[in-house]
């Protein structure tokens, strides 16, 4: 199969990242972390290149890529919102936060808004249980978040929020 020049050009930066590491299985996670950082998600071709480089079947690479919440298989938005729904946050009513995010952004966890601005995810534990419920917006940690705080956070990133009616 002939590779289009465009496609080849897109592959080059991926290849560079992958080749930074020796071709050994133990570097798999590190390579995927670098790819995620660079592209804000794990492009399909990148996973293929990684699998070939470390000589691990694609199935195993895919399994790992879907296991860790730090990875995403679809492009994340400019602002990545990650709401913790681990045990402590859950008990501290993270569901309220997640519902508010859903309502304000009009997307479900795992989705990105149509304009590519916000993406929403739930994570299993951020290791910051003392400040539950926690919301992370582009690596900035927000502690003891409330529904009102959610609206403020979205606004601070340039999002439009309809004020709740009647209160």
């Amino acid at each position: 199969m002939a590779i289009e020049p465009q496609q080849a050009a897109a592959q080059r930066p991926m290849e560079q990242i992958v080749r930074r590491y020796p071709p050994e299985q133990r570097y798999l996670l590190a390579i995927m972390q670098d790819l995620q950082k660079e592209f804000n998600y794990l492009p399909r071709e990148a996973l293929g290149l990684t699998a070939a480089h470390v000589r691990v079947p694609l199935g195993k690479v895919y399994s790992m890529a879907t296991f860790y919440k730090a990875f995403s298989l679809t492009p994340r938005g400019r602002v990545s919102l990650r709401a913790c729904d681990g045990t402590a946050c859950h008990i501290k009513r993270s569901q309220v936060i997640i519902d508010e995010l859903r309502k304000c952004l009009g997307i479900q966890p795992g989705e990105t808004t149509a304009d590519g601005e916000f993406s929403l995810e739930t994570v299993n534990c951020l290791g910051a249980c003392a400040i539950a419920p926690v919301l992370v917006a582009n690596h900035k940690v927000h502690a003891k978040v409330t529904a009102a705080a959610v609206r403020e956070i979205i606004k601070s990133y340039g999002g439009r929020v309809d004020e709740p009616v009647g209160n």
Partner: protein
Amino acid sequence: MKIVIDGIETAASPGEMLLEVARRLGVRIPTLCYHEAFGGQGVCRLCLVEVTAGEVSRLVASCTYPVTGEIEVRTTTPEIERIRRHIIMLLHRRAPGSEFIQELYREYGCQENVPAPDPDERCIMCRLCVNACEAVGACAITAVDRGTDKRIDTPYGEASPDCIGCCACAEVCPTKAIGVSRAAGHYTIWNREFELERCAGCGRPFTSRPCQERIARLSGQELSGAQLCPECRKKQAGSRVALSMIP
């Protein structure tokens, strides 16, 4: 060393798995995720038994319990039955579509389970299929996602180029969760369609080309044009032996 299973004394070699000793003795312990080819996994917990060493008794999964000393084993007690019934209830809630699980459910007199999230689900996530796929060197299917979304699938849920169509996954599945759809001369598994190759002896379609190639490679042989199905191969070997015995 000597161990006692349900009152019967038997010998076990150190490190041998308790389940295997019991099977050799003819004692039936229910299992789901155990397969002779891969050993115990300790996933389904159905093989639970009570092990007493000296004064202490505890419940262990017999498929992953290596015998290391003199022990007394009971494979069924009211307590074990109660826990097993509970495990079956959970498995049934997860995979109510499986006839095998339905049978266990009836056999253990389970009643009034909570409604299942997916009434057609048959997979209990025992991973035997993943082990089988890895053993044949394909690794086309793996566990995907995590938590309640976890499932067995190919990358991106698409036909995998690594799949050779051997159907070992469907073969080992205890709950018949992996579908193989067959049509004349073809079959489809994990979204990939394979053409059936015919046996050079009887002409019966029996396996896929990639599968034949893999077998040839694993056994270090060249894949020559004509391939025989297992039955014809047996017959051929039999007649060869018979001929060699004629003086």
